[in-house]
């Protein structure tokens, strides 16, 4: 047998997209996460996209109960979770049916054939067994009795049949580790820590993992294994991080950088809850997390905390932002620092809670009564959430204003290896406080129109503020018409002047091209890859990505007016396009695809080439 093992072919690949799919109870998110972590450890760049249903445990075996985890890794830089999988691991018929249309031609499909019984086929609404009717002819299909093999391997563990079956995802994981030449040790370590209190599960899961690995090694079914060389990443220390984790870490970093304790008032909502979960663990950083009774209390409590001198945060998704609008206006008129994080999801209303979208931009921009400008920043990748959370906090604290940080479900749940910055790379956030009780007036302003902050409870600075219009300088309640006009203008100009404190819009690619592709938020990776491929085909294209949206960077007009064509893909019906057209009076070629899914870079590539007048063939 050992002779045969040596004869297995090893094929080198530059990049691979794998989709782990199964029932929502099959542990696919765990499997995908483990595979990603190990893949990161062996030095590949990667990008992931979990795709899970809104229901926690939809009826087993059905299509709407399918949970998927897509992972793209390679030897070069990886910016997206991959357009179409090269490999599908399908734990049941529903997982196959759901993912088949999206597979690459000739993709490899590893199937748990045990699940393809008449019941499983019926639940997936298959009239004929796809393993037998020839419908998978265009693919490389590997039928593996994952359930049976797991059962055999775990027969002596003393676990019930039902419990044994729950380990089958580890069998699949082991097999995938073998197939892509990854070590199983990191997962073994993880299992040992995770199930420390249940040794029987440690034993079972490790056995299943090893069984899967050795199965690949010994079975004749797999003649080839694959090698994906390490990426040439910038030297440094790395960790795998999701956007939500990065947002949470960024907010804590902002708290440490500004020397202000952090307060989070938040109500659980998909896909933002993980920020609340993560911050709830950071108690030793002095973080106070308040799980409020509703979204309004989430922001209101944060405003109270800001009045009391903390770095105050509220986190939510679109429907929650809608509920927070009145209180957001209160933060505008009281000119208190506050960071509102909106992890966007498909709308309107409850919409597509677990899917991604960029359609809250105009809500962030305008959804308040009266003239109530709020600065907006947006993160473009999972790890960028860290930096933009710091930026949002910095702007809020230094300009005494609420700030909205937009991320989205895709980058919030997606992960990528992040080069951890050195402490010295992160700039302190200087916060100015009112310092002279004799001359203190709550709405006096500095040269940037910023009012002084005198946190409640500080002796000598007692003052009253609130939602009624303020007299400039004194902050007394004022119904004076001219004062109101002046205050409206001051609040707008204060936000406008923030452009003097943010970086310019950076142009990537061919700066001297005729066409520029712009974007904002989580579409960065897909646009980057698309532009890259178009350039590889010999076209000249530039790219710019907005991380600061309100106000726009100072050079925005100048940059955009340099190009004959401006292409703007957005996962909404043209919201940034509207803002840019209104402010800069330019033509924009829009590409709007609103399917609850991230862009595919191959689609964007086509859009760009079409607009360049090129041929897609």
């Amino acid at each position: 047998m050992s002779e045969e093992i040596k004869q297995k072919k090893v094929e080198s690949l530059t990049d691979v997209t794998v989709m782990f799919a199964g029932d929502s109870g099959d542990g696919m998110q765990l499997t995908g996460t483990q595979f990603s972590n190990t893949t990161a450890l062996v030095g590949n760049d990667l990008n992931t996209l979990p795709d899970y249903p809104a229901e926690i445990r939809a009826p087993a075996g059905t299509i709407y109960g399918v949970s998927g985890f897509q992972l793209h890794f390679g030897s070069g830089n990886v910016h997206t979770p991959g357009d179409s999988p090269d490999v599908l691991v399908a734990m049941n018929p529903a997982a196959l049916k759901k993912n088949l249309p999206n597979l690459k031609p000739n993709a490899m499909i590893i199937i748990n054939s045990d699940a393809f019984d008449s019941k499983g086929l019926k639940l997936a609404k298959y009239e004929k067994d796809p393993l037998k009717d020839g419908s998978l002819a265009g693919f490389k299909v590997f039928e593996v009795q994952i359930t049976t093999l797991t059962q055999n391997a775990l027969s002596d563990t003393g676990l019930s049949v039902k419990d044994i079956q729950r380990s089958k995802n580890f069998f699949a994981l082991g097999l995938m580790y073998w197939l892509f030449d990854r070590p199983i040790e990191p997962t073994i370590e993880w299992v040992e820590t995770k199930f420390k209190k249940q040794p029987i599960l440690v034993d079972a899961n490790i056995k299943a993992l090893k069984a899967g690995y050795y199965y690949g090694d010994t079975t004749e079914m797999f003649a080839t294994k694959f090698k994906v060389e390490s990426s040439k990443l910038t030297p440094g220390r790395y960790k795998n991080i999701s956007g939500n984790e990065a947002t949470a870490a960024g907010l804590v970093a902002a708290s440490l950088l500004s020397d202000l304790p952090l307060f989070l008032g938040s109500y659980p909502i998909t896909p933002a809850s993980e920020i609340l979960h993560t911050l709830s663990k950071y108690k030793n950083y002095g973080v106070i997390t308040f799980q409020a009774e509703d979204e309004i209390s989430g922001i209101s409590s944060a405003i109270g905390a800001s009045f009391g001198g903390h770095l105050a945060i509220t986190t939510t998704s679109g429907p929650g932002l809608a509920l927070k609008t009145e209180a957001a206006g209160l933060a505008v008129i009281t000119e208190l620092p506050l960071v509102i994080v909106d992890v966007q999801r498909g709308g309107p209303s409850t919409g597509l809670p677990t899917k991604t979208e960029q359609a809250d931009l105009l809500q962030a921009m305008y959804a308040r009564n009266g003239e109530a400008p709020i600065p907006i920043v947006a993160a473009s990748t999972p790890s960028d959430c860290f930096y933009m959370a710091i930026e949002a906090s910095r702007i809020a604290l230094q300009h005494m204003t609420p700030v909205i940080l937009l991320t989205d479900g895709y980058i919030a749940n997606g992960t990528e290896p992040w080069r951890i910055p050195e402490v010295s790379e992160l700039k302190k956030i200087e916060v100015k406080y009112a310092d002279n009780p004799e001359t203190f007036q709550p709405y006096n302003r500095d040269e940037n129109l910023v009012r002084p902050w005198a946190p409640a409870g500080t002796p000598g600075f007692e003052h009253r503020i609130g939602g009624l219009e303020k007299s400039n300088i004194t902050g007394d309640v004022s119904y004076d018409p001219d004062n109101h006009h002046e205050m409206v203008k001051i609040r707008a100009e204060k936000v406008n002047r923030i452009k003097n404190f943010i970086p310019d819009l950076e142009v990537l690619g061919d700066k001297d091209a005729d066409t520029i592709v712009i974007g904002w938020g989580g579409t960065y990776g897909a646009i980057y890859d698309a532009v890259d491929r178009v350039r590889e085909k010999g076209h000249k294209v530039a790219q710019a990505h907005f991380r600061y949206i309100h106000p726009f960077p100072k050079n925005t007009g100048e940059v955009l007016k340099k190009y004959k064509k401006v292409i703007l893909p957005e996962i909404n019906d043209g919201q940034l396009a509207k803002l840019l057209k209104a402010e800069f009076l330019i033509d924009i070629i829009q590409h709007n695809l609103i399917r609850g899914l991230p862009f595919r870079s191959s689609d964007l590539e086509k859009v760009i080439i079409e607009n360049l007048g090129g041929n897609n063939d």
Partner: protein
Amino acid sequence: MTDQTKIETTELKLTAKDFSSGLDVRWCPGCGDYSILAQTQRVFANLGYQKHEPLIVSGIGCSSRFPYYMSTYGFHGIHGRAAAIATGLKLVKPDHPVWVATGDGDLMSIGGNHFIHACRKNVDLKIMLFNNRIYGLTKGQYSPTSETGKITKTSPYGVVDYPFNPTALALGANATFVARTIDRDPKQLQYIIEEAAKHKGTAFIEILQNCVIFNDGAFDDLSKKDVKDDNILILEHGKPMIFGKDADKGIMLNGFTPIVVNLNVNPQLENMLLVHDEFEESGILADILTHMSEKSGLPTPFGIFRRVKRPTYVEGVTKQINEVTEKKGKGTLQKLLNEGNIWEVK
């Protein structure tokens, strides 16, 4: 005195007047709010507060102008959200007394959710409900405490729904200090405000307050000299429940139902009268008392229904932070960046 009311000996002893912001008070002449403002200022002075210590939050409505008239830190919020704003403020300023001035529309209607959770969590807020049973600032619509049948602008043929009983709601939400008082009895008002200030935990005070414009005389039966003694029962801890102009009526339990007994006719029943116990843990006595009103032919109780000790939310939060910090060590930027599985690329 509790920790909250402790003062440094070196600090100035302020007077009630020192707690006035000096702004012209713009409530209607004769409004019950003036009395609440005056008593609060007096209590703050009595307790030796410095101006920067008490933090006052309000929502929207006539009552919610309250912070503007105090010389302390004040925050005039948005409709219904005072308790939520105050909760955030209290969490970050645990050593400062945080007061909420609110009305029956603000607290019982649009802010109902925040109110019950502030009670449930025992956030340690001092909530003063100015209950005039009407919307005043929006000029006379019925409120969640307006009585059934009341004619108002939005109920020209009479209110068809049923009012909240604020003290019952607070007790139901597990508030640790629940009291009722009235604007026309400054002495009792002052006493209750002071006891609320000393209480550690969420303290809820329902203050029946006369709106001279839209609901004038709503509480005449409970405040007019000639009739009030027969209509109200003053709750005093450890004392039997006796009321009436001639102190000749008492409250007894018949099964679960309180009844009035005439002590002139049945003097022997005096030993069997209910004796008030503010500190009764279960809250059953307070529940019985809160449902007493003229509707069931009983006097309306004033005073402290319930006062029990329970660790506050703020204490719990602070304790957990301290414990975790002790166990894991204080977080630093370096530590934060090092969290999780890290590998090195050379």
